[in-house]
């Protein structure tokens, strides 16, 4: 039996040789998620001191004990640091191909950090302040990060920046593709791209390349991972496409000229909506047209109807619910890498929930406090049918 890791990760027979221990770790960590009773206790708290008391009985006890006074932002950074510690521990235990898979997960945060550093450099902010605001999961070599803002904000500066700095980072290729595509579209001026194009659009393009790249990698791994992660990434890509279209109404991106040139370029080349759906989405200019396009795709009609009803939930909440449902399912089967991605994303959702609850308590908005999506909850709408036994 070969013990050197190869490109694929093996199926039921040999997955556990290289990845059994780590998967067991992740499944152990799965039990650290806050349960319904924890959420219930925390939402009943009147002050943030009570919240701190309740949190010390959950898995967050260490993270919270360091905070003298609990604030929503303090809680958020403590929780994120806890997630990063756990992730780094798992990462150090991992071998190929799981190691690359875990790295792919961090690229998303790297992209965000790079954009933050670039934008901050343009506005001339202090490098240390910027580094403090970077997402810890997306940090790369400190020397590289420090050198990003030192480049001059002019034409030659950016070309240099790309060639010396960005090309070394794992997300370099995405930048290359983006600059290539923009220079083709804008007629040759590579350097002004970063200045003229809005930072969000650059980020959306990079995320698009990342999703496509991740999807290719996952397909190469084959087996259950290709199936489950493929599905998760397709849903992610579709969510992005729908959100970009929906949120572009009323902004310059919705102009007919911009729609085909710029907005279409932001749609990822994976997903249920690709290629027919994204082609139609590129021509959509109002919400009704968007609704008509989505009617053709049954898995998104329910989400769209939530948005159209404009009742209590917003479309973002509907997407979050759909995501949590899909990610929880990733834990239901074994012998694939989906549970690692799911763990990071579900932890993120939990952190979002905690920040939401503490903010509601702080701002005395108790009637809104239950508008979060709990993770692994037995009261979740998709589980209620199994309760009657």
């Amino acid at each position: 039996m070969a013990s050197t890791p190869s490109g694929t990760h093996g199926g039921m027979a040999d997955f556990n040789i290289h990845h059994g221990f780590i998967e067991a770790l992740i499944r152990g960590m799965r039990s650290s998620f806050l349960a319904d009773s924890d959420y219930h206790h925390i939402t009943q708290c009147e002050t943030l001191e009570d919240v701190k008391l309740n949190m010390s009985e959950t898995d967050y006890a260490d993270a919270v004990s360091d905070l003298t006074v609990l604030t929503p932002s303090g809680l958020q950074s403590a929780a994120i640091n806890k997630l990063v510690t756990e992730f780094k521990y798992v990462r150090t235990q991992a071998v190929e191909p799981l190691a690359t898979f875990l790295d792919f997960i961090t690229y998303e945060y790297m992209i965000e950090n790079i954009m933050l550093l670039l934008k901050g450099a343009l506005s001339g902010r202090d490098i240390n302040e910027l580094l403090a605001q970077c997402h810890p999961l997306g940090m790369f070599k400190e020397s590289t990060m420090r050198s990003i803002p030192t480049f001059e904000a002019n034409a030659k500066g950016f070309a240099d920046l790309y060639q010396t700095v960005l090309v070394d980072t794992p997300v370099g290729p995405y930048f290359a593709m983006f600059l290539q595509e923009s220079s083709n579209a804008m007629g040759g001026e590579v350097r002004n791209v970063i200045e003229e194009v809005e930072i969000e659009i650059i980020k959306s393009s990079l995320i698009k390349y990342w999703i496509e790249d991740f999807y290719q990698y996952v397909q190469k791994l084959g087996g259950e991972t290709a199936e489950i992660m493929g599905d998760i990434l397709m849903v992610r890509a579709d969510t992005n496409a729908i959100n970009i279209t929906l949120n572009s109404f009323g902004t310059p991106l919705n102009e007919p000229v911009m729609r085909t040139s710029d907005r279409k370029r932001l749609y990822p080349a994976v997903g249920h909506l690709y290629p027919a759906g994204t082609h139609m989405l590129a021509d959509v200019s109002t919400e009704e047209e968007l609704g008509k396009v989505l009617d053709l795709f049954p898995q998104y009609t329910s989400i769209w109807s939530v948005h159209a009803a404009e009742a209590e939930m917003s479309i973002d909440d509907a997407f979050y619910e759909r995501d949590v449902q899909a990610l929880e399912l990733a834990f239901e089967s074994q012998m694939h890498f989906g549970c690692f991605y799911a763990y990071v994303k579900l932890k993120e959702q939990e952190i979002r929930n905690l920040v939401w609850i503490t903010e509601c308590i702080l701002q005395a908005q108790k009637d809104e406090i239950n508008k979060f999506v709990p993770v692994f909850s037995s009261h979740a709408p998709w589980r209620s049918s199994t309760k009657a036994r």
Partner: protein
Amino acid sequence: MSEVPPTRMNQQVFKGKKKAAESGHKLLKKKADALKVKFRDYAKMIAETKGSMSSDATTAFFSLTQAEYAAGNFKQKVAEGTLTARVRVGAGIDNVAGVKLPVFTPYETGSIADNQSLGLVGGGKKIVSVRDKFTVFLHQLIKLASLQTSFVTLDEAMKVTNRRVNALENVTIPKIQNILDYIDRELDELEREGQFFFSRVTIAIHYHCE
């Protein structure tokens, strides 16, 4: 009192002064009353605006929380972007009952929002609603600031006017009145002296003629 020679001319002069002072006093009193009315109006408007502002503030900040739930931490992205003001405050002067009060008016500079594609991949609607709610809050803030500066200036002006009214009432007019009384008395006495002298002279002449 001793500096004013008690002549008829001075009597006329001071009578004129008294009339001027009294009419001035009446006008100032009218101005003080008008200012008092305006003062009460401003106080009421300030109380109303403050009341509505507290609810506006909570909705604005809560919509920010909702947007952060949907779109992640976008505060840094906004802070790092180019900050050109979209709404500016113009300072103007309003004339109220003769008092020049400063007023602030908001006006749009028309510069396009830099971060229009902020919530592109999620939370866009919430960010738009944050923008709207904070704009409402901002307008309330400007209104309140304008009202409060006007209020303070109005207060100053009212104090000054009241001081002048009181000064006229309790110092100037009584002083003039005292001078007038003195002149009257002196003139009376002069007349009496004159009469007395005249009567003594006529008695002396009669005595001599007999």
